[in-house]
């Protein structure tokens, strides 16, 4: 079996929404190192591939959502949230600004957790409560999901309020307005955008790799 074959098998199981086949590919109980290895070797690349396929219009959002949920459940089973083998990381949080459409946030949350990260889920918040929570929780990486353009534009006010509070988290944004205007994230004062849930994992991973040790938990 070549190195890419298990990824293909796992990917196909996810896209077919076949939980049994996905679990079979992921394998049974094993040592901690091996479990983390499975996440890195199978789960993360598969979710990245699915994100790329969605961006190219070759799979649907519902497949991205279901595959993210399936991976989150499977990874929770082999690496519980309290497991020290989960990724060494700084405090992170995710929120939806001014909107009750939570799917985008849910997908990013699932894919990050399926990749071994832990993050606070603030749900739907307005700008003021988001700022106060970020300051209170010393958040280092803040992910903001939006559905509509006005909410995206309100991120600028969040950034300004955080600046006034002396708080400078890395802000990663995502959602439809950013996909349709790829310059918008700069305009609102974000540090990066992710076009897909899987891309947010790549951004977070790269960021954490370059963070000084004292920022990690």
């Amino acid at each position, binding site marked *: 079996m070549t190195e890419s074959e298990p990824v293909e098998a796992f990917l196909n199981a996810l896209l077919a929404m076949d939980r049994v086949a996905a679990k079979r590919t992921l394998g049974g109980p094993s040592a901690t190192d091996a479990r983390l290895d499975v996440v890195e070797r199978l789960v993360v690349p598969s979710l990245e591939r699915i994100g790329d396929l969605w961006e190219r219009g070759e799979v649907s*959002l519902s497949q991205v959502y279901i595959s993210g949920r399936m991976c989150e459940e499977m990874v929770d089973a082999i690496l519980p949230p309290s497991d020290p083998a989960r990724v060494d990381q700084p405090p992170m949080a995710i929120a939806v600004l001014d909107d009750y459409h939570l799917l985008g946030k849910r997908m990013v949350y699932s894919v990050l957790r399926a990749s071994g990260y832990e993050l606070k889920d603030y749900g739907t918040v307005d700008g003021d409560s988001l700022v106060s929570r970020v300051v209170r929780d010393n958040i280092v990486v803040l992910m903001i999901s939006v559905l509509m353009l006005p909410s995206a534009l309100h991120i600028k006010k969040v950034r300004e309020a955080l600046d006034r509070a002396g708080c400078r988290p890395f802000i990663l944004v995502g959602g439809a307005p950013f996909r349709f205007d*790829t310059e918008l994230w700069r305009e609102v004062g974000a540090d990066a955008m992710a076009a897909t849930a899987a891309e947010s994992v790549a951004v977070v991973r790269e960021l954490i790799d370059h963070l000084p040790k004292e920022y990690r938990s």
Partner: protein
Amino acid sequence: MSTRPMTSLERVLTTLGHREPDRVPLFLLLTMHGAQELGLSIETYFSRPESVVEGQLRLRRKYRNDCFYTFFYASVETEAWGGDVLYTDDGPPNAGRPVIRAAEQIRTLEPPRVADAPCLVKVLEATSGLKAAGGGETPIIGVVISPFSVPVMQMGFEPYLNLMFEQPELFEHLMRLNESFCIEWANAQLAAGATAICYFDPVSSSTIVSPEHFRRTGFQVAKRTLAGIKGPVAMHFASGRCMPIMDDLPDTGAAVVGVSMLDDLAALKQRVAGKMSLLGNLNGVEMRRWTAAQAEEQVRAAIGAAGHGGGFILSDNHGEIPYQVREDTLLAISEAVHRWGTYPLDVSGERASFPRPKTPRS
């Protein structure tokens, strides 16, 4: 020989007949800009049907638009189902907390009656007001949200996807309730004077569900619903992709399809020429920062891709132009349609595009 310009209605009907009118019709799908014209807040503007009538009349005059658009906001439908509407100063009123908090509620849910819903009656009053003011020369475009897509607002996107994939019986029951409401709502708008109905169905797009899933679900819903609507229908995917399902769409009964800038407009045109007309596909979000020259280039390119032979209406790709898009940009778009959209066309089929940065986007 008389060279009287066509009326907007004549222009639109000619292009929908897959023939070339005097120029490409322009549907600037403006909603909140009417409030700007009248100096009103968005909430006040939509609270008074007479304001919407006046706003639409002014917008048509200013931008030489080829339609009136009686779309207030998407959540007007969930408002009728008992939901909340959240107003902001700078964007479309949004749906509040879902009205269906648990899937089991679907079993006892009853659709609202249009006549009993004040928010819908306002839309009907605006429609009949525009019908009276427009003299029949300008098409009035009414709007419904498809039975397959409205559950995103009724119950939230995630619970809806879970329902769709895990509780097929309840899903089907909800579709039947929504179809009944949607048909009544569309026909009430037609009776009030709407010329055609725009059926917004983003969940059916290949961006949201796979083509195979669409054929089992949203496609069947659309066929049943459109069969009950007593007027012409445009199926609109609100920025979602539709290329993979394009061959299925004529069977829904829709005459027009609203297409995304994510799809190749020239390829779409080639695929459905003579069978369906295309509506689209300017990028409304990006439009906010277009210069006049960029606006002209985008219009010219879209017309070059899809204008030949008729069967094309220039519009944005989402079905609503953001409140932040400036007047001078809209004027530049209108001017460009008059310059480049006059038949016979003098544009090539190449599509303008801004460079799209690849990752990393930081």
